[in-house]
């Protein structure tokens, strides 16, 4: 597709630019401003240069939160992508009431407010009133996400997989639906196995949507806040304190504006770096798909 070169197209982009500038650029400038100053109160602020950055980078709790975050996001991708694809493959390929019902059910967890997700899982996993917690404890295995770090991790992962795998499944299903029926007929005539159909027809056709799924899931799991905050509050100890939770603790809990702002910038740069890498991959997949 060759597009016309026309700078007047900027007029069409201008509204978006203005809106996003208002809600992104101005706040970002404020953050940069905070990050190099020590603020005691209104009118009492001193320029401290890169002091906050040095302090934040030496903070071991930040390092721990960062590795925890990478582990979490890695696990999320490892579990949700294959599971989502498997579910999409099981979905009815013919449109009809079964497919509609399946789609509605799949989309349900995606439309529940994030703190309610946390609430659902508290109610579901508590040892005294929760179905899961009660059942596991009755089976003789002690399980309490408020006391044991491992249990907390298992609960947060279960919640995350429950919450977001449907998005991967929806995207993968959309990719599957775009495959013309003739491909399957040809495969059947050739006597192709299910695996061969998956490997040589379905998977290549899903490559585009799966890249988007990986991108979205990485981004959102990296920014996760409300669900684990409601469920575990970052505990027990700091075992489920992810980057956003740590940041809000510093910014709102301790009101250390300088370090919080420096942390914000580092956090943002990490996400930016990854998003740039993903964007490059995405572009390559996009052009590769076009043939």
């Amino acid at each position, binding site marked *: 597709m060759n597009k016309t070169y026309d700078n*007047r197209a900027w007029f069409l982009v201008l*509204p978006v630019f203005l809106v996003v500038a208002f809600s992104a650029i101005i706040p970002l400038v404020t953050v940069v401003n905070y990050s190099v100053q020590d603020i005691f109160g209104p009118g009492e602020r001193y320029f401290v240069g890169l002091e906050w950055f040095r302090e934040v980078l030496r903070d071991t709790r930040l390092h721990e939160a960062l590795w925890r975050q990478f582990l979490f996001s890695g696990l999320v991708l490892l579990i949700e992508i294959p599971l989502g694809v498997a579910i999409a493959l*099981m979905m009815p390929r013919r*449109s009809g009431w079964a497919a509609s019902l399946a789609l509605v059910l799949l989309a349900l967890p*995606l439309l529940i407010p994030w*703190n309610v997700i946390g609430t659902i899982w508290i109610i579901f996993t508590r040892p005294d009133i929760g179905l899961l917690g009660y059942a596991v404890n009755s089976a003789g295995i002690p399980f309490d996400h408020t006391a044991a770090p491992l249990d907390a991790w298992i609960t947060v992962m279960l919640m995350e997989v429950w919450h977001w795998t449907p998005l991967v499944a929806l995207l993968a*299903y959309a990719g599957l639906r775009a495959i013309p029926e003739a491909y399957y007929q040809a495969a059947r005539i050739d006597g192709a196995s299910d695996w061969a159909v998956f490997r040589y027809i379905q998977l290549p056709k899903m490559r585009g949507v799966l890249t*988007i799924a990986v991108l979205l899931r990485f981004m959102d799991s990296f920014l996760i806040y409300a669900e684990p905050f409601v469920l575990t509050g970052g505990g027990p100890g700091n075992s489920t304190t992810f980057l956003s939770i740590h940041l809000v603790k510093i910014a709102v809990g301790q009101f250390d504006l300088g370090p919080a702002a420096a942390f914000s910038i580092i956090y943002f740069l990490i996400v930016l770096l990854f998003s740039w890498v993903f964007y490059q991959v995405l572009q390559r997949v996009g052009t590769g798909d076009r043939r």
Partner: protein
Amino acid sequence: MKLERSTAPAGAIPGAEAPARAQPRRARGFALRKGTVGLIVYFVLLLLPIYWMLNMSLRTNADILARFTLYPADPTLANYASIFSDPAWYSGYINSFIYVSLNTVISLLVALPAAYAFSRYRFLGDKHMFFWLLTNRMAPPAVFLLPFFQLYSTFGLIDTHIAVALAHTLFNVPLAVWILEGFMSGVPREIDETAYIDGYSFPRFFVTIFLPLIRAGVGVTAFFCFMFSWVELLLARTLTTTEAKPIAAVMTRTVSASGLDWGLLAAAGILTIVPGALVIYFVRNYMAKGFALGRV
């Protein structure tokens, strides 16, 4: 192109609907039975936590704490009644609806022309602009918490619906541009050119011909905007105090204040699922089609 001009009457582009209708019919799965069983097991697991909350919402707090039962032995609607009779509760729902709708409208209005520009033209800095937009989708909301509060205080917007709606454009506008661009790129350029030759002005072409062609895309985009604005809590809670407080924030406040009334909490949770379920019901036919046509 010239040939089409003579045959196509203004306002009606023949064959424009055809690509959307090209769905695989007669699709018989290779392993339908096994797959269906797996799917049913998955959906049971998916619904189990929601069922459990529903179960809790139909019981009084004393009953919940007293005994463990798999279903409400004597179901009561008392929890729902107390929510619907307390303005502090139900105004939360109204507030959420107002800012989510505002956000969806703003996002769509600004994203539609921009997405058209990205899908049809090259211009100075277009790639950078697109990437910059996407980075905002990736910005951690926690980072923007304090600056947003300051910014909206300066403009006197704290505790208004428009503040939350504007804050949510941070992640919804980039997403809307991204999804819509995918849909618009799927519409052949020839349609634009034919319309211009037929003497359509840009606004008239855009509204009467182009928008109907991508209405599935607009539906999917609205769905995503609604979804991400409805579920977000951190920004919505920070920017509101009483007048525009979202239901999700009302829930957290009540939890910390009056001890834990599990039944009431569960009932409020169930009620937050209802609008989402309604939205899905309305866009269900667009969803598979929509996801497949667009890039998302």
